[in-house]
């Protein structure tokens, strides 16, 4: 090194030393590296720049250090001119903040190669954009520079620009959020490809300005969500999302997430089409577009992708008329949307036809059979596990939730019908009425003998509660069988085989009886059978005993010609078919099935379950083989001598189930039926001893513990027992023969769970009904939107009723008199009739005169008395919302407060007086007056003899509209009714619409000339979700109005009475031309309500 250089070095080192020794070191290291490339002047200029930097502020020597440090890397990249410009940027940054400059320098060596030198300015610009002069902004900008190497390694300059804009937008809300997003951005964007990133970031930017709180989730989860969308379509999807964010703000991320999850559920192939359809909507309503995507998977479950455009078109047309209507359509919250889907779909939903099938089954069997989804049966945990196989547990028929086997709806319904008919057949033809000791109609009884000959069962060592096996010797004799079915299966060593055989023969018997009794369904039934035959497994591939059973299944399906069987064993098969066909006669009873089982079992026992290869001559059975002389029931199934090849037998496995016959569990059903019967006789369900149950569970092949729970036998049987008791209690009100709730037009009763909260009373099971709700924005109903939970009011004391009568004795007497006057039959004399009770003197005189005058006389000369019969029924619907808890005094005060405002003394004295009075008598609440009015009304109605029902309603939310029965329309006044009045109490909200609809349905079922629906309320309808948000009142008013109009259309006379003084405001809108009244003076309600009622009905 030249001396000159050395001097320069040492002079700068001296100047730099005061700042930091490390700065000096950096200088030296860099100078050594680049010294050869520069002239002395350049070197000085370079060193001076560093020195300037270091002098700039207190800690700016750090920036200077970075500057020196990176120079050897940067200089070759930029050349000296570029280097100068670069350094200038750094200096400028340092003027803002030395940390900023430092990070800029630090990041440069790696970042610069990624961006073109020409864009350094842009880069710095991004950092400067973030810097706002505050320390938080500075640290964010530093973070940006520090992260730049990683960032630019992944993002293009353009992408980085959008990202920074996004982060900058977040800064307005939260620096922490901004900083976090900046940290994860590069990583998060990694999985996205090319164009998607800018689309992704553009949406992020829109989110930042609206749903900024979601920005973080978006950045974190968004890429993964997007990944499930078809690669080519992601950009389009993001554009849709951005449009939503731009126009709707707020929930954009939620929609983005839901819609992408929805798209993930459908075939990627269809994403393109779905997005095109969504794009068609986005112009008019981005919300509708997103709702459409969200609904798509559900719609596609029911209709093929080819028809979705048709469904879309209907909604799109609706959107033109009203955006709310269209949005509700795509949200599937409108009847139109649902109906359209239903019309386009060939799939049949059980929920839509269960009513029809229930009545159909009732007609066929004569029993009260409910029809439910198989899923419900599996959920009960009482032995059934398949959620989609038809079955019955003795009191209800369970069917798969939907059928979509065919392209055609009628055909799919036909499948349901066959399923349902087969299950109904079990009930109609007495499968579960099997009696062990009863003779069949065809086969001689051999069960009893077989039972006696059976080797005594090895007493299983009892298992104590810990699952330990007790020491031998203390064995207790096992309890006897619970049911006749169990006793029958006890005969057989191989219970599974016996159970399979019984299922085949019994199902075959039922099928025969059905096709004999129901000629019209024979063809559909036959179709099902041949379909089943087509999907049977190859018999010749099965171990031989299983092949034997398989062949029986085929024969039972009418597939004798599909039997494949080794020639050398042919006689057994022929014998077995003989047994089956002997059974397939119309007179066969379930006991004959048992006898057939016994015989087939013997035959099957003789056939070792060896591999099929052990026998060679597998062949289809020829008609010739079968044309053996008809065998007599006496001799059948008794010679089972066969020569089986020697071989290791395989464990026996049950045959593949036959779909339309479903799950068949005769033993369990008999047990359930027995328990139900005991419960009905003894009034409670205290069924079997745990020992008996455990034994049954151990033995039974119908209930596989492993299927039910991963637990040991004791636990499982306890669980089973619990479920069983639950099941029995639930059915308390539904024993066969007992009247089921009448189905109403749209309110469909559904069985619910027992409430069981009152120990003393039998738990009364609430009944559930569903009603549509009117969405005035959409101009359409939301289908099955509200659930009514109907239950009687709890019972209190009758004394309340008596006391009220006493308290109002004079009013009571007066009302009674008024109403009794209405009672006698009234006649109206109609004159001028062609024919009647008697001649009308005036008319006859006229007649004579006219005749004399040779005028054609008026021949209408009779009169008749026509009876005006009073045929009135009325349903009172009482608001039991929490607001009725309000004391009347306060209620009044609410209105009077203004008067006192100016004069506090007046108010105070009034208040004092009120308090004094309140101490004497407890404050009366609105509900109390309502109750008293009811008592008075009852006396009036009893006097006049009208049919009346008294109901209350309240609830919370659309799923839980409580409907309380004080007295049902067809219930007589009794002490129980009086006791219930005592317990009327304020509950929760006021969703009037569904309550009105339910009361209407009740009135509708009641046959009367005049039907009145009398609504008593204390305020406007309101409930959770009864409107767009909490403050909106319109929605509730519209729905209530619609419900009233529906009642009117159905021929009811609705009337609304309110004690809300401000009621006029909304009642006018709610009732329009329906009668209403505001009773401002609450205390006058009892007398007013009776007067009103009288006026209404005369």
């Amino acid at each position, binding site marked *: 090194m030249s001396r000159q250089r050395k001097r320069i070095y040492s002079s700068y080192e001296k100047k730099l030393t005061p700042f930091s020794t490390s700065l000096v070191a950096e200088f030296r290291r860099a100078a050594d590296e680049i010294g050869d490339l520069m002239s002395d002047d350049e070197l000085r200029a370079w060193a001076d720049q560093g020195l300037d930097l270091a002098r700039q502020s207190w800690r700016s020597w750090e920036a200077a250090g970075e500057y020196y440090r990176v120079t050897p890397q940067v200089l070759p990249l930029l050349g000296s001119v570029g280097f100068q410009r670069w350094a200038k940027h750094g200096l400028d940054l340092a003027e803002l903040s030395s940390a900023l400059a430092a990070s800029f320098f630090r990041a440069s060596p790696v970042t610069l190669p990624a961006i073109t030198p020409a864009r350094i300015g842009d880069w710095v610009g991004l950092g400067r954009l973030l810097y706002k002069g505050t320390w938080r902004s500075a640290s964010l900008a530093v973070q940006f520079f520090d992260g730049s190497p990683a960032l630019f390694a992944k993002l293009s300059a353009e992408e980085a620009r959008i990202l920074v804009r996004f982060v900058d937008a977040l800064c307005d809300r939260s620096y922490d959020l901004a900083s976090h997003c900046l940290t994860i951005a590069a990583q998060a964007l990694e999985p996205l490809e090319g164009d998607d990133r800018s689309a992704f970031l553009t949406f992020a930017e829109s989110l930042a300005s609206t749903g900024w709180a979601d920005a973080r989730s978006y950045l974190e989860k968004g890429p993964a969500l997007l990944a499930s969308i078809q690669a080519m379509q992601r950009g389009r999807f993001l554009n849709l999302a951005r449009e939503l964010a731009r126009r709707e703000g707020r929930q954009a991320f939620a929609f983005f997430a839901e819609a992408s999850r929805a798209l993930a559920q459908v075939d990627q192939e269809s994403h393109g089409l779905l997005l095109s359809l969504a794009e068609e909507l986005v112009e008019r309503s981005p919300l509708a577009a997103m709702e459409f995507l969200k609904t798509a998977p559900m719609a596609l479950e029911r209709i093929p992708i080819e028809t979705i455009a048709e469904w879309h078109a209907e909604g799109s047309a609706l959107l033109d008329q009203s955006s709310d209507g269209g949005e509700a359509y795509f949200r599937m919250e409108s009847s139109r949307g649902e109906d359209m889907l239903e019309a386009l779909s060939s799939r049949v939903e059980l929920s839509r036809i269960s*009513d*029809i*099938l*229930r*009545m*159909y089954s*009732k*007609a*066929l*069997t*004569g029993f*009260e059979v409910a029809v439910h989804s198989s899923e419900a049966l599996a959920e009960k945990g009482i032995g059934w596990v398949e959620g989609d196989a038809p079955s019955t547990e003795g009191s209800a028929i369970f069917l798969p939730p939907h059928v979509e086997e065919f392209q055609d709806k009628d055909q799919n319904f036909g499948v349901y*019908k066959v399923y349902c*008919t087969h299950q109904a057949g079990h009930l109609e033809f007495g499968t579960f009425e099997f009696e062990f000791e009863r003779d069949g109609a065809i086969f001689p009884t051999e069960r009893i003998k077989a039972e006696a000959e059976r080797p005594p069962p090895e007493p299983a060592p009892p298992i104590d509660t810990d699952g330990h096996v007790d020491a031998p010797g203390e064995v207790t004799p096992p309890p006897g069988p619970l049911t006749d079915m169990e006793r029958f299966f006890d005969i057989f060593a191989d219970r599974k085989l016996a159970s399979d055989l019984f299922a085949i023969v019994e199902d075959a018997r039922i099928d025969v009886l059905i096709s004999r*009794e*129901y*000629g*019209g*369904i*024979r*063809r559909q039934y036959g179709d099902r059978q041949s379909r089943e035959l087509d999907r049977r497994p190859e018999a010749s591939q099965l171990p031989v005993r299983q092949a034997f059973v398989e062949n029986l299944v085929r024969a039972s399906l009418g597939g004798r010609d599909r039997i494949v069987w080794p020639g050398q064993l042919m006689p057994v098969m022929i014998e077995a078919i003989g047994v089956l066909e002997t059974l397939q006669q119309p007179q066969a009873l379930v006991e004959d099935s048992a006898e057939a089982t016994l015989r087939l079992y013997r035959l099957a026992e003789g056939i070792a379950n060896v591999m099929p290869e052990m026998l060679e001559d597998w062949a289809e059975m020829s008609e010739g083989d079968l044309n053996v002389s008809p065998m007599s029931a006496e001799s059948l199934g008794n010679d089972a001598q066969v020569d089986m090849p020697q071989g290791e037998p395989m464990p026996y496995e049950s045959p593949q189930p036959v779909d339309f016959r479903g799950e068949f569990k005769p033993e369990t059903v008999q047990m359930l039926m027995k328990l139900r019967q005991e419960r009905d006789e003894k009034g409670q369900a205290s069924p079997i001893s745990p020992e008996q149950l455990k034994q049954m569970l151990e033995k039974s092949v119908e209930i596989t513990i492993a299927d039910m729970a991963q637990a040991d036998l004791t636990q499982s049987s306890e669980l089973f027992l619990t479920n069983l008791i639950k099941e029995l209690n639930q059915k308390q009100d539904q024993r066969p023969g007992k*009247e*089921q709730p*009448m*189905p109403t037009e749209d309110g469909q009763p559904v069985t619910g769970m027992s409430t069981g909260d009152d120990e003393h009373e039998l738990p009364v099971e609430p009944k559930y009904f569903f009603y549509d709700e009117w969405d005035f924005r959409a101009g359409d109903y939301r289908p099955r939107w509200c659930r009514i939970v109907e239950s009687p009011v709890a019972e209190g004391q009758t004394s309340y009723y008596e006391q009220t009568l006493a308290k109002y004795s004079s009013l009571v007497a007066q009302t009674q008199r008024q109403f009794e006057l209405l009672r006698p*039959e009234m006649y109206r004399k109609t004159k001028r009739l062609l024919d*009647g*009770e*008697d*001649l009308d003197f005036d008319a*006859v005189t006229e*007649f*004579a005169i006219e*005749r004399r005058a040779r005028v054609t006389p008026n021949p209408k*000369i009779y009169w*008749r*008395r*026509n*009876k005006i*019969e009073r*045929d009135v029924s009325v349903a009172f619907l009482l608001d039991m919302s929490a607001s009725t808890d309000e004391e009347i005094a306060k209620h009044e005060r609410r209105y009077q407060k203004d008067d006192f405002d100016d004069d506090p003394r007046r108010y105070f004295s009034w208040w004092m007086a009120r308090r004094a009075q309140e101490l004497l008598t407890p404050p009366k609440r609105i509900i109390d007056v309502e109750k008293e009015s009811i008592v008075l009304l009852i006396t009036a109605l009893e006097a006049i003899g009208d049919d009346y029902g008294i109901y209350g309603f309240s609830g919370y939310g659309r799923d839980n509209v409580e409907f309380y029965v004080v007295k049902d329309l067809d219930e007589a006044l009794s002490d129980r009714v009086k006791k219930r009045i005592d317990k009327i109490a304020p509950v929760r909200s006021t969703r009037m619409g569904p309550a009105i609809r339910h009361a209407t349905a009740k009135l509708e079922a009641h*046959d009367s000339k005049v039907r009145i629906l009398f609504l008593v309320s204390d305020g406007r309808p309101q409930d959770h979700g009864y409107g767009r948000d909490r403050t909106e009142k319109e929605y509730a008013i519209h729905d209530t109005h619609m419900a009233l109009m529906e009642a009117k259309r159905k021929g009811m006379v609705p009337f609304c009475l309110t004690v809300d003084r401000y009621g006029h405001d909304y009642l006018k809108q709610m009732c329009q031309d329906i009668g209403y009244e505001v009773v401002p003076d609450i205390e006058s309600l009892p007398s007013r309500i009776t007067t009103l009622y009288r006026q209404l009905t005369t």
Partner: protein
Amino acid sequence: MTTESTHRQYAIEEYLVTSEPYYEPLNDEVALFEAAYAEKIPVLLKGPTGCGKTRFVEYMAYKLGRPVTVMRNSADGSKNGEESGMPLITVACHEDLTASDLVGRYLLEGDSTRWMDGPLTRAAKVGAICYLDEIVEARKDTTVLIHPLTDHRRLLPIEKLGQIVEARDGFILVISYNPGYQSALKDLKHSTRQRFMAIEFGYPPRELEAKIIAKEANISEAIGLELAKLGEKVRHLKEHGLAEGVSTRLLIYAGKLMHEGISPRRACQVAVTWALTDDADVQRSIEEVVSSIFE
């Protein structure tokens, strides 16, 4: 001016059941009715519509009129000279039926009036069977009117004439009542009820009903049986969407339509399903039962 009437027309007391109506006894009702008739006990026939009450009364009228020998009409339908059967006067009750409608009223004739007996008076005078069909439909004040006739003296007071008619031998009062309408308003008053012996009618058992349908509709017993089966199944729906089960009458109509060549499913649709209910769901479920039974 006279016009030749093309329809047959009888004075009430001349309406005789002249050819043996087809009636299939369900039980011992024939013997019971004969006993009641002999002992002059008024009879209440209870049962749902279309189960054969009217037919039974017609049959009894015929039977009681010819206690010893049964004589057939000659082939051309004219009477063979001898009086046959008992006169039967049937009144279908309705809610506007008044006392005058039953007892009689004045008619204007020229410048004077003429009294005309009502059906009840005529029946009492000639000693006919008087059948008041669906008695609960009538006004309560009308029902009371028959009370004196059910007493042992069997009198009918005619207020407007100031007369009392004593029922002639052979007169018997038969009323019918359908307990199916369970409305308190349409219940028979106890004071009325307690004056009659009651014969209960139900729908015939499947085999018998099949025979009746086959005979009345002129179809094969096999089809009759299918229709009877349909009847049985549909009756399970009573109180369960249907106010009343399907009557034998409707099943016969369906059979008759089939006889005329209408397809079975269609015949059942118009004569059974649509006749019974307007409720779409109930209609649909009946239709499913029909299509399960008939091809």
